């Protein structure tokens, strides 16, 4: 079968991206909009738009019934969920299947399995993929000591039942283990009624490496190389690049093979990303999680491989076999993506919604900008703060870095505050240029620069 009309169940730049991919394949589009997005760029580009609810995403973009009903009611034969919102919600995939609408993504079962972190870890281990050394059954000090000796220090102690960072303890010296164990165990018992601890190796000097996977419904699984997303702030990626030029090739090959082995093991379909943590001190890698959707940073891979990932998603969702072979997948040059958000970095990354009075993006043949913004657009306060993705390519990393620094200067947005000044500061640092960074580096830079959290201290929390 081939798809005739696709329902885009998302907003912002990814809705624009999906609409354009559909049109390139001759597929009609219907875009879901909330009350706040009626005049969005995606709504104007799409064949049609349908209002699925009020501005609050809980009553619109997160409403499975509204989304599926609108898709069926507008005669769509497929639904693309984008990223965020319902993209990794197995109930949406189930509802689509029930209504005879093709869900552009993995099977609901895969979404469910990978969404459960413990189950995902089990399946990774079963596929021979290394997982962070640790144990989940540490109920007394003797066991804690033997686990610590086995996996080596430093280690992290946390409550085996429950999460949210309650009772978390870092142990760097064996002498501190008893005190840390007793504190963590007591806190775990107080918070969750169970003093059993989860102990795992703490990787301090880490890089975040992820492998792009695409698989068809006929058992063919390909990797499209990897991305390095080490620049993060509170687990939010800021800059992504590829290939992982700063990780040794023999290790990279193992990482790519591990991603494919896991995807084959769970009979993965469509696009996905297998995330890993690389211990730069020990030259080892471990499985983190699988993202069962197209990712924000997919253009990095597109720039390197020449593959249009969203178009491939639509083709394999329609049942077409992948035409590409693994041998044909080549990573050419180097690509860097910067996320430009409506946030005032110097005010603790305070969100800055409002009207964009001027929007000037750099134009070069080595630059791609994915965005839903334009001069006069009002950034609504209801959704996430990403305005645009700036993707820059070069023949090698050095050229890509210097070009990115150049075009960040050329990019200008007025009327609202953006993270452009922050990105300029970050990419001007010698550690970024040389690659001597880890996943904690961005916060270190912030503590040393003007971008310290002026007056606002934040702590991570888990929502919805």
């Amino acid at each position, binding site marked *: 079968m081939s798809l005739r009309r696709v329902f885009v169940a998302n907003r912002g730049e990814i809705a624009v991206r999906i609409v354009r991919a559909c049109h390139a394949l001759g597929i009609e589009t219907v875009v879901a909009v909330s009350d706040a997005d009626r005049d969005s760029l995606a709504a104007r580009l799409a064949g049609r738009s349908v209002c699925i609810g009020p501005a609050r995403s*809980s009553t619109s973009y997160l409403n499975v019934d509204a989304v599926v009903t609108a898709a069926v009611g507008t005669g769509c034969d497929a639904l693309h969920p984008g990223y965020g919102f319902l993209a990794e919600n197995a109930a949406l995939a189930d509802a689509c299947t029930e209504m005879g609408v093709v869900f552009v993504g993995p099977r609901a079962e895969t979404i469910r399995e990978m969404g459960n972190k413990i189950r995902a870890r089990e399946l990774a281990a079963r596929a021979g993929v290394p997982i962070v050394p640790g144990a989940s059954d540490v109920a007394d000090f003797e066991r804690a000591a033997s686990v610590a000796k086995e996996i080596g220090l430093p280690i992290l102690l946390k409550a085996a039942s429950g999460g949210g960072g309650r009772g978390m303890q870092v142990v760097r010296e064996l002498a501190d283990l008893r005190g840390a164990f007793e504190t963590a165990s007591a806190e775990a018992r107080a918070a969750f009624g169970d003093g059993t601890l989860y102990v795992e190796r703490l990787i301090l000097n880490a890089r975040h490496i992820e492998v792009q996977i695409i698989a068809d419904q006929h058992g063919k699984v390909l990797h499209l190389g990897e991305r390095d997303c080490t620049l993060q702030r509170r687990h939010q990626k800021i800059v992504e690049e590829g290939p992982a030029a700063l990780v040794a090739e023999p290790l990279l090959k193992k990482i790519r093979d591990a991603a494919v082995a896991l995807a084959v093991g769970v009979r993965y379909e469509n696009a996905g990303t297998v995330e890993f943590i690389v211990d730069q001190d020990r030259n080892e890698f471990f499985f983190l999680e699988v993202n069962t959707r197209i990712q924000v940073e997919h253009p990095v891979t597109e720039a390197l491989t020449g593959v249009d990932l969203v178009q491939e998603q639509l083709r394999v969702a329609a049942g077409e076999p992948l035409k590409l072979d693994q041998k044909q997948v080549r990573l050419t040059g180097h690509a860097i993506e910067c996320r430009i958000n409506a946030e005032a970095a110097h005010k603790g990354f305070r969100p800055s919604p409002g009207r964009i009075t001027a929007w000037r993006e750099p134009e070069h043949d080595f630059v791609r900008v994915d965005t839903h913004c334009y001069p006069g657009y009002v950034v609504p306060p209801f959704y996430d703060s990403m305005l645009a993705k700036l993707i820059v390519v070069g023949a090698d990393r050095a050229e890509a870095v210097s070009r990115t620094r150049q075009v960040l200067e050329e990019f200008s947005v007025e009327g609202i505050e953006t993270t452009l000044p922050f990105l300029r500061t970050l990419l001007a640092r010698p550690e970024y240029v040389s690659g001597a960074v880890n996943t904690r580096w961005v916060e270190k830079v912030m503590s040393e620069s003007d971008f310290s959290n002026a007056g606002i201290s934040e*702590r991570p929390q888990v929502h919805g």
Partner: protein
Amino acid sequence: MSDLTYQDVLNILRLIDSGQFEKFEIEYEGTRIKVSRRAGSAATAASRPSSAAPTTGGAHGEAAKAPAAPAHGDGKSAPAAAPKRASSTSAAGGIEIKAPMAGTFYAAPSPGAAPFVETGRSVRKGDQLGIVEVMKLFTAITAPCDGVVRSILVANEEFVQNEQTLMTIEAAK
């Protein structure tokens, strides 16, 4: 099914909105739309009654005194700001609790949960009173002093402006 498109419906709604009439009827290829409105029904949102916060489930006692992780929003995780205190003393002597930024006010830690506070409830300094969320940044609103909640001026999930008074607290003597 008629060929009435979504854009047509939007245009019809705009037509209705722009007119002064009380009744509107349109028939198009078998689809009939009837709209009637009573005078004064427009602009109700602006004049919401005070203390409109949900008060059901009020008998559940100590509702989330510690700053709990709110379960609102659409992200898997999002940063949350630590308690911000913005308050001033009103003419009537109560302390006005103000929104630190424009955003959505949440009266409870998660949908369906009991609200953080209700009118008449005693609070201690630092107790959480609500949450203001903008673009997935969740900011806890906390009590600047011990006292009693005298009034709650905004509804759950209402969009509030920067510096808008959310509630008033009568400080303990």
